[in-house]
């Protein structure tokens, strides 16, 4: 079997004549936490749906060595997925959901689900409708993380949660899921918050993959320079990807190191994922380079 959990080559998903995902190629090795970033409508959800066999792709797509459409049943024993529209039945008790999952999924461990839930304030006798939004999402994560799968796909799992619930969610994810073998693909708009959690990032813009890199390579490839506003013109002349404001001055972001003469004008800072996201996915009408 391939060393990659996910391998996509020239993958497209079309709705009518519109390509929601447009000719993207990427791989996800084992043991990674991959962030899928993009504006609303960029194709994140469609891409995730293709990975779990819910959307019909063109091109080559292999997930755990399987074809998500043709071998969906087999695939679903080793992939777990929380869609962006995920709901748990409001009338059910959490303990009943565990019983249900035990009957439905061959690799679900009820014992593990109960252990995961003990981390949270959710009780087995609680009805879903009595839980807060943050607790529902945590219960949901506990249920899918109790599946002995190799890939977890999470579509904006923390949308609408307060900061404490998001923190608890990510703690459980790092603590209980990431073991160096399993991988997770997670889409979110809270770019700043997840940056430190990620090992890799995939960035979609209008269906196209504009960046696919490990965070380690990103630090090496992109150069951010904070500089005095007085040298702004020289910076602009070196064609940065983006110019933005930082505390106490301005900064410019370059793809690859700019000439030494330009490097000498500023101080190198860590390029942040948010800045890169803005630089690579901005729409022409939102162009912020001129300020």
């Amino acid at each position, binding site marked *: 079997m391939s060393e990659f959990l996910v391998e996509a080559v020239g993958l497209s998903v079309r709705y009518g004549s519109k390509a929601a995902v447009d000719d993207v190629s990427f791989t996800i090795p084992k*043991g990674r*936490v991959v962030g899928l970033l993009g504006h609303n409508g960029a194709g994140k959800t469609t891409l995730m749906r293709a990975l779990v066999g819910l959307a019909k792709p063109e091109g080559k797509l292999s997930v755990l060595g399987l074809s998500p459409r043709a071998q969906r049943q087999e695939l679903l024993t080793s992939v777990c997925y929380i869609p962006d529209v995920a709901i748990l039945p409001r009338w059910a008790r959490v303990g009943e959901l565990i019983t249900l999952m035990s009957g439905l999924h061959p690799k679900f461990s009820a014992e593990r689900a109960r252990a995961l839930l003990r981390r949270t304030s959710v009780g087995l006798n609680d009805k879903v409708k009595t839980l807060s939004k943050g607790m529902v999402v945590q219960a949901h994560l506990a249920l899918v993380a109790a599946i002995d799968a190799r890939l977890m796909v999470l579509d904006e799992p923390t949308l609408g949660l307060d*900061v404490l619930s998001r*923190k608890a969610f*990510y*703690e459980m994810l*790092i*603590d209980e899921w*990431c*073991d*160096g073998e399993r991988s997770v693909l997670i889409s979110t708009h809270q770019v700043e*918050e997840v940056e*430190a*959690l*990620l*090992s890799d990032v995939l960035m979609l813009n209008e269906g196209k993959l504009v960046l696919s890199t490990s*965070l*380690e390579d990103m*630090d090496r490839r992109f150069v*951010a320079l904070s500089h005095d506003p007085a040298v702004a013109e020289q910076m602009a002349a070196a064609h940065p990807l983006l110019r933005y404001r*930082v505390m106490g001055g301005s900064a410019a972001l370059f793809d690859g190191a700019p000439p030494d003469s330009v490097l000498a004008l500023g101080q190198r*800072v*860590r390029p*942040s994922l948010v800045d890169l996201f803005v630089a690579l996915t901005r729409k022409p009408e939102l162009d912020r380079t001129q300020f």
Partner: protein
Amino acid sequence: MPTWNDKFPIYQQLADVLVAGLLDGEPADGEAMPSVRTLASRYLLNPLTVTRALQALGDSGLLENRRGLGHFVTPGARERLKQAERQRFLGEEWPRLRTRLRRLDIGAEHLQWESK
């Protein structure tokens, strides 16, 4: 959530945090460092970032990686760190501080040495 600055790579910032712990004797010489997963969830960091930080401390001789057992604080690491920090303070910080104290006319007699 912990905040990381934009000046240095995150693994380096975590290494600095861990070094500060070692200086305080946490963990003490010869003792085991917390596991990668423990640190990852404590600081909400990707485990690979944590591994890089531990490797960096290993490269500078502060930690030993015992295969399968994890990272341990090298005997004498704390003392070496303390010496290095002392030198840095006396060489870099103290001259700046001294200049500032002189400018403010603060002498030894104005300084409270006993912490309350």
